[in-house]
């Protein structure tokens, strides 16, 4: 399902297996627990890199699991939407820089998971970003839009991402300002690039609590939506 490894200063969170890494209550709980673990083991200079195996970073919520409940499908959808919020909150709150290394496709909540990281690297050769909701006829939770608005500046880019139903490849995603890089071919290439970035960030030996506090104050609206209090003290803690 997912694993957490430590490589020097770097925490590597991997969505394992060749499947679509869909978010299901169990995977969500798993990811949350690993993020908790990273948080509790964090020191100055810690950095998180999240990646996956196979063709998908994550293809979103487990719709099949929801549908298998028949009449209870909507209830299950609501449950997943609700229980996913803490994952975003945990990433926003994580006392270390976070980097998503997209090995493959990121769709819907899988894309939101990626965008919740401070830096997002995609592959140049494969993988798309895709807000599938518009094609499946599902509305987008308010905190998803808040995340897009917080991380993506241009009106055009927001439209392409949230409304167009387009499958955005790496270069286009960079041009739209949605991801930071799509310069590398292959999953290994992307991971290597993120490790390199991670190591340069780790070398700064930043205080993780301060880092998280500053990060949250960058996105006050989003923090409100995911029930995080941004640590906006009026005074410096000198």
């Amino acid at each position, binding site marked *: 399902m997912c694993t957490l490894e430590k490589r020097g200063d770097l925490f590597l969170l991997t969505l394992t297996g060749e499947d679509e890494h869909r978010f299901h209550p169990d995977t969500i709980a798993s990811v949350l627990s690993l993020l908790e673990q990273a948080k509790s083991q964090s020191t100055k200079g810690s950095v998180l890199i999240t990646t996956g195996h196979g063709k998908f970073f994550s293809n979103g919520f487990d719709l099949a699991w929801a549908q298998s409940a028949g009449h209870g499908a909507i209830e299950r959808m609501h449950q997943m939407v609700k229980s996913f919020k803490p994952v975003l909150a945990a990433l926003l709150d994580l006392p270390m820089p976070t980097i998503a290394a997209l090995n493959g496709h990121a769709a819907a909540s899988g894309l939101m998971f990626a965008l919740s990281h401070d830096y997002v690297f995609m592959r140049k050769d494969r993988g798309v970003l895709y807000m599938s909701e518009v094609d499946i006829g599902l509305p987008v939770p308010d905190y998803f839009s808040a995340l897009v608005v917080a991380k993506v500046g241009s009106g055009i880019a927001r439209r392409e991402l949230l409304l167009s139903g387009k499958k955005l490849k790496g270069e286009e995603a960079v041009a739209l300002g949605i991801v930071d890089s799509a310069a590398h071919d292959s999953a290994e290439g992307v991971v290597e690039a993120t490790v390199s970035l991670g190591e340069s960030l780790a070398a700064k030996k*930043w*205080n993780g609590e301060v880092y998280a506090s500053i990060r949250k104050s960058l996105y006050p609206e989003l923090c409100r939506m995911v029930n995080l209090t941004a640590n906006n003290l009026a005074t410096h803690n000198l």
Partner: protein
Amino acid sequence: MCSLEKRGRLFILKLTGDGEHRLNPTLLDSLRSTINQIRSDQSSSQSVLITTSDGKFFSNGYDLALAETNPSLSVLMDSKLRSLVADLISLPMPTIAAVTGHASAAGCILAMSHDYVLMRRDRGFLYMSELDIELIVPAWFMAVIRMKIGSPAARRDVILTAAKVTADVGVKMGIIDSAHDSAAETVEAAVKLGEEIIQRGGDGHVYGKRRETLLREVLVHTIGEDESGLSVVRNTGSKL
């Protein structure tokens, strides 16, 4: 401390001396009283303010050494800078920062609180240093950053990597209006820009009110959400 020169309709406010122009209570009081002087000048609503500095620094931020001796001074400095920025935002004339040296943390916020930011490209950088020195960034600083830097990636780079932003990079990020080859050329360009703005004409009072509306989000933090009639509060020369 600081000096004020009048050149035609241009007010040139300078942080004087070769030091770091740390924003301690004395300098902040001096700046505020000079801004008040400018505001009450008869020609103010047809003028332009240029803020610049001597030496290697525009301003290296709050006087942290002072705050270490007395923690209540950090609250005081923050409060005084907030009032100064609120004064700049309500000032009935366009404002230009001619950044001829390093501008860090609170010093960077001061520079960005001007309508136009011109900077030398041969030396100096903008630097939101807080992350590097383990300081939390106040909410009102973040409001200035959000209002003045449009791209989420640029905001992240500035505040979450403590980037040292040189003028040309600043232009690309949309923080700086233009980059110039030296300190003297930066000031010259600011003067030229100021004169062009004055030529265009217009009523400074209206300008000031419009700016207040545009930067409302910052004012909400600097004055407080309960205050209505923001410009009324400002013009009474409130002793905040």
